[in-house]
């Protein structure tokens, strides 16, 4: 029951936002929050629940975006047909890369995924006959479904947040299932998990593939929202930003991903006012949040609330 209330609340919020906000800038920022939430959610499954770090996840985001761009522009496919192919492409790459990479652990896993992310980014840049190279890929069509055009920011907002809701539901079901329990076992101790009969390698790979698929979905949505993509968007910096969203929001927390993505999307928008000081303030905020709320915003806020209630 509780979950249903929560979901209804979520849908209501999105609907209200879409209905009452007419300024396309705010709608666009909200849409970007949605896309970033998808990214954070996918990575959180990997980092928070399976305990595996990835410093190259922007590669899957990019694969999703470039796959749909190439298919819709060079091959004139319908975007809706390109979507499953884009996700499948990311999933396949994740599988191939995941088999050897996920055998690494700790910082070495970070290094392995980082190297992979760099290679993919260089491919985006150098394969210019297909990807448009460093100047970027122009002319990606806007989405439309029958009579509904998603070129309106309102409709796009609903589309993106619809996807977010679907992914949240999916993730929650996985977490509450047998697989989720096995994942948490891996997080707490991989060898112990293996000892009680969890096929750790297979599970890690499955989660890696799942998170790659979600990142690709986000990439698809990004490409058709902005109608332009270039390699910088999917660089190493983006991978780090994704990890930051997960950790700031709170590891192993679905709503934490939402919170982390919101904060990291909104922060640069607020900090415009600081102009030259923007970087300094941004860095300080990251540091301060982590110093005082090392478990992330979700846990941190809950702790503060609980403490204040106890003291009342």
């Amino acid at each position, binding site marked *: 029951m509780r979950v249903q209330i929560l979901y209804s609340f979520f849908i209501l919020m999105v609907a209200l936002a879409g209905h009452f906000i007419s300024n396309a800038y705010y709608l666009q920022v909200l849409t970007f929050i949605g896309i970033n939430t998808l990214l954070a959610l996918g990575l959180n499954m990997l980092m928070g629940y399976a305990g595996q*770090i990835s410093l190259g996840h922007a590669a899957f985001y990019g694969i999703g975006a470039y796959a749909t761009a190439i298919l819709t522009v060079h091959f004139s496919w319908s975007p809706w047909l390109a979507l499953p192919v884009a996700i499948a492409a990311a999933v396949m790459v994740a599988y191939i890369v995941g088999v050897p990479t996920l055998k690494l652990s700790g910082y070495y896993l970070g290094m392995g995924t*980082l190297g992979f992310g760099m*290679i993919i980014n260089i491919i985006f840049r*150098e394969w210019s006959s297909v990807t448009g190279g460093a100047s970027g890929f122009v002319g990606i069509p806007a989405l439309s479904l029958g009579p509904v055009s998603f070129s309106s920011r309102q409709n796009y907002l609903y589309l993106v947040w619809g996807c977010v809701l679907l992914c949240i539901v999916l993730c929650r079901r996985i977490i509450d299932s047998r697989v989720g329990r096995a994942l948490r076992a891996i997080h707490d101790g991989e060898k112990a998990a293996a000892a009680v009969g969890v096929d750790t390698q297979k599970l890690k790979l499955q989660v890696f593939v799942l998170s790659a698929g979600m990142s690709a979905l986000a990439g698809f949505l990004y490409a058709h929202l902005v109608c332009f993509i270039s390699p910088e968007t999917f660089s190493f910096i983006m991978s780090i930003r994704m990890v930051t969203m997960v950790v700031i929001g709170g590891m192993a927390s679905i709503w934490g991903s939402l919170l982390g993505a919101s904060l990291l999307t909104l922060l640069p928008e607020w900090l415009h006012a600081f102009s030259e000081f923007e970087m300094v303030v941004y860095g300080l905020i*990251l*540091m301060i949040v982590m*110093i005082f709320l*090392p478990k992330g915003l979700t846990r941190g806020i809950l702790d503060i609330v609980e403490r204040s209630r106890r003291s009342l």
Partner: protein
Amino acid sequence: MQEILQYFFSGITNGAIYAVIAIGFSMLYNSTDLINFAHGEFVMLGALTMVTFSGPFHLPLLPAFIATVCCISIAGLLFERLAIRTVRFPEPIVLIIITVGASIFLRGIGMLAWGKDAYSIPPFSTHPPLDIAGAKLLAQSLWILLIVLLMVACLHFFFKKTLTGKAMEACAIDKRAAWIVGIPSKLMVMLAFGLSTGLGALSGVIISPITMCSYDMGTMLGLKGFCAAMLGGLGSLWGSLIGGFLLGILEALGVGFVSSGLKDATAFFLLLFILYARPGGIISALNVKRF
């Protein structure tokens, strides 16, 4: 033949740069079990501070050098005291994000203090490039090479032979156990930070006659240095050295025999294979903990 030798020299030059940064990463990991993603920014700060000391302050090379390293070491101590020690639950991932935040913060400081332009530092000596069988090696590259080797030798001596060094390593292996036997672990961590940021500043000073320096130089250098450290085996000083040179030479050969656009990709591709074959780096010194 001359070309191959020149590629090799190019690799040595870049490799020495990567190695000197990798050593900073490794040294800190060796004594605190932590990766400082802001290390590249300390390299940047070192280079730019040197610009100020040798430019507007008109200090000669050596005093400017020493003043720079001291200043950045103090900045490193402050960073440890203010940002690292105050964390309540120092899990690796939390500390990583803090250092990422610090890197952005320091980059911002660098931009405000020195502006957005690039600067160059004159080389240490004005010898003409060394000519070996038609291939040229810059005198500054030799300086870097020399200092790197000296650095590793000194650090090796420090960690293996001096009490402080051994105590520092003990803190990394088990902080609590080190505390029980009477090692002031907090002091050790602080010292390690000062030392590693000082090393970063030193690297910044010695490489910028070749690379030029600007407020945004740190990210790429930090990244390459991190790769070199990982490749060699985290926590192993000699490993960092080997990792750095391997990365530099692989890149140069990638330019020579594959394509310059794909040089980073070639290097990273081979790195991944090395990691798959030896999941602990070439020299795996310490057990690497998981997140």
